[in-house]
């Protein structure tokens, strides 16, 4: 379990890094926390010819409160997000989910940008950023562009990133007043990837009617599965048990695509998604009413 030979660069400026990516294209991989890439290299599943280590580039690790949300730098370690009062205040869904991501060793090294760029459909951050309608700044030598989370995750380990681009930061909008959130997942062991999971955010109007809702599933499709129709079904409704059941039913029968593997069959994953979706909406509803 030793990696195949590769060239290693450790640029100290973003320009240098972008120039290396531009030069090597598909042969190059960006190394941030390395918590997915390095094991894959050790298994020789990934054999990049060139590794561009961005850890020596200054000022890429930050969590800054801004008008309407929070700006998170690519090299922000999960541990920083887990312990950040700014994250707790402005993006409590991300903050409270952090302890569910792997175990402390991984969270100490793993990064915000790395997890998003890797786009594992079982990882939490792609699902959370999709749920919160976050957007990402992608930078290359040719310039930069902002891409919304919903348009960023395209499939299994596949994103909108071009080979010469780096995801440099994300902007996570803050939830409006009378909002609630929940992340529910089932993990074999505390630190495992979820067998199934779902994140829910809800916003109520003053009379308690659901104004806005987003339900996004993890581990039951090849990317974060935004259940758009089920989310829309909740809008304009009082969140009665019947309304919650109807949205759950729609989401988990028509808007997810679970697969079989050694840990769970597609049927069991669908059953879990259903159970969790109902619990997530209920908990988000409680929070939106200020009950939790």
């Amino acid at each position, binding site marked *: 379990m030793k990696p195949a*030979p590769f060239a290693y660069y450790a640029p100290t400026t973003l320009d240098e890094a972008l120039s290396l990516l531009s030069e090597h294209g598909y042969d190059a991989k960006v190394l941030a926390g390395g918590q997915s890439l390095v094991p894959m290299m050790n298994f020789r599943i990934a054999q990049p010819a060139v590794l561009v280590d961005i850890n020596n580039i200054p000022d890429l690790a930050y969590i800054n409160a801004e008008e309407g949300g929070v700006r998170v730098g690519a090299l922000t370690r999960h541990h920083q997000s887990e312990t950040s009062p700014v994250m707790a205040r402005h993006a409590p869904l991300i903050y409270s989910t952090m302890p569910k991501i792997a175990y402390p060793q991984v969270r100490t090294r793993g990064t915000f940008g790395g997890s998003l760029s890797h786009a594992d459909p079982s990882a939490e951050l792609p699902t959370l950023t999709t749920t919160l309608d976050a957007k990402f700044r992608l930078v290359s030598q040719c310039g930069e562009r902002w891409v919304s989370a919903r348009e960023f995750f395209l499939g299994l380990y596949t994103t909108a990133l071009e080979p010469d681009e780096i995801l440099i930061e994300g902007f996570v909008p803050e939830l409006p007043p009378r909002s609630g959130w929940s992340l529910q997942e089932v993990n074999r062991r505390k630190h495992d990837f979820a067998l199934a999971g779902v994140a829910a955010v809800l916003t109520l109007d003053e009379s308690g009617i659901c104004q806005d809702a987003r339900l996004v599933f993890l581990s039951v499709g090849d990317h974060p599965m935004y259940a758009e129709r089920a989310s829309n079904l909740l809008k304009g409704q009082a969140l009665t048990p019947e309304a919650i059941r109807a949205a759950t039913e729609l989401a988990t029968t028509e808007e997810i695509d679970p697969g079989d593997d050694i840990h769970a069959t597609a049927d*069991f994953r669908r059953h879990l998604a259903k159970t969790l979706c109902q619990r997530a909406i209920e908990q988000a509803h409680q929070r939106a009413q200020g009950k939790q």
Partner: protein
Amino acid sequence: MDKRLIGKRVVRNEDPRLLTGQAQYVDDVNLPNMAHAAMFRSEYAHARIRSIDVSKARAYPGVIAVYTAEDMGADCYPGPPLVSPPPTVKDVIFNSRRQVPLVKDKIRHAGEIIAVVIAETRYIAEDGLDLIEIEYEPLPVVADIEKALEPDSPLVHDDLDSNLAAHLVQKKGDYEAARASADAIIQRRFTIERGTAAAMENRGIVAQWDAKSEALTVWDTTQAPIPIRNGLAARLGLSESKVRVIAPFIGGGFGPKIMMFYSEEMLVPWLAIKLNRPVKWIEDRRENFYATTQERGQVHEVEMAFTRDGKILGIKDDFIHDTGAYDPYGLTTPLNTQSHVMGGYDIPNFTSEFRVAFTNKTIVTPMRGAGRPHGIYVIERMMDIAAKELGIDRVEIRRRNLIKPDAFPYEHGIIDQAFAPLIFDSGNYEAVLNETLKAVGYEKFIKEEQPRYRAEGRRVGIGVLPFIETTGVGPYEGARVTVEASGKIAVATGVGTQGQGHFTSFAQVVAEQLGVDVTDVRITTGDSAHFNWGTGTFASRGAVVAGNAMHAAATMVRKKILKLASKVLNAPEEELELEDGMVRVADIPQSSISLSDLAALANPLRGAVEPGTEPGLEATAYYGPQYGPTAFGVHAMIAEIDAETMMIKILRYVVTEDCGTILNPLILEGQIHGGVALGLGNAYYEKLHFDENAQLLNASFMDYLLVGSTEMPRIEVHHLETRSPLNELGTKGVGEAGAIPVPALFAQTMEDALYDYNLEIRETPLNPNRLFGIARKEKTA
């Protein structure tokens, strides 16, 4: 002052070295000019090798050599059988087929070695592996143990008529007659699937050849350094005195590290001599999943005969045991299963038949538990089913059948894993059961707490069950105890060590005899240069077999000390006391001599050692039991389950263990904790998933779910001590105990928690998906 050291919670002598990273492991051995080996392993489970092309690998910069079976020539032959088949049982069939260093023509399991690359670094060696080209002819695969024994099955070994590796029947009483007189007959089928031991440290070997003195030194993660030394010397044509095998600190053995000889164990020392360079091979985790031996696969068809009040009249058990591609370890595991299918119960009639099947899977050898969890799973599941069918409380039906204290020694009339008669030496089984029921609050839970949980809609179940563990088998171990000139005590034994606390528990045994601090006893284990005789650490035998050898040697040294001191101090031996490293005349504290001075007097530079005496304060002793002692325990669990997700939470876990005299409760409890962790894995987390081509689908810790600290409950351990009459110390083994009852206990607890689903669990390991399917009577993966 209390001079007893045995039984005290002494903190471990070895921990400062281990915790500060000062302990030497095999991978810490780095020698000048050392080369690194990497193994080319077969991807196929069953295939003929058409051609091997290693030319590109040989040409790769940094590669020193590449060897195949052809290059190894006449030196490439199978390892010796580790355990010979039992000679004492009538009509036994045993077909011995053993692994080779490098496979020449036919692959029999994925992970077998076809070629070895030796390079300047492991990185380069692995680059070399990528350049080897093999042409295979894939063959139909034997993946399922039941299909393996069907007449039209493909053959793992073409020279045999079938995949039958062994067949053996053992009987006691007359089951058929018992059946005829029974009020109730219960039949069931149980399946137990494979797991792996997953020691924290993988295997590793470093071999160094000194051509000038024709001496070979091998550092090996083995549980059996002396047999490895003897076997290597024989294999390589060297004198045993010219081969030194060192098993240094080892990060967990659990059984698979006494599989002798692994292909790599035959290969790496040979390479070191051939290349005249030190060679290191360290197994990586992926290799460990394919190449280190595994265990647990069995299918049982069981029948039990009962009276209507729940008394067991007899058992008939027919099972198939998976041995994988080869059977170097003989029949230890299935014999152990046979010895445990009767549990701790008084069962007059017993018929057990097993067939061992070759399959295209990794070799099976004993792994912590070693056939015992299978036997306990079968009997304890049957007891639960009988309790339900006969309408008797599950604790009560067990109580009615446990062997009574006055029935010991309880002779079964069959043989055990060591081919010795299966005799339970001693015990007080019902007392252990009562202690556990009291500790877990069984009555109160059933009468008050559980109804309250159920009223709240929570599914919380309780499980309680007993188990036995046959331990401490022969043939023997030895120890040498020496009082050194410093007054410190040096002890050597041939038994290996992998973290069991030998440096402390053995030291306690010796220190108690010699009146010194536990920290003044320095133990050397697992180095053939320090002790010439021994078998190894396995079968929960270290404390029993090596422990009693320690005790015997220390007792002899004590006698030598007293005899010499009596002369020096001019006082009768009966009046002498050994304390604080001194020999004192009782009541005359000023009349004393230190062990240090006494050691010097015993080994004088001038004068004469008297005829009939030996120099020094030293003795060597051996202990070999006629048969092993049998320990007993009861585990109880209270757990909650979410019936929608099948996620569990263990609220209480109580263990009462009776393993005879306790040497050190701290170490004993650690053994139990580790065992329970493995047992929980075998119950709900750890399963090797093989597909129909015998390809392992979860060869990494991402997909093979080891139980971690986040899954472990707090374990409350209680002790009873029924001394074994078989040995001086009164000890029984405990190394495997924790793992044995857990899958059966887990099944019982889940059935109780999911009371409204009325489920019957007949397989292990489970997982949430499977449990969900069983609960809803669905067919699931």
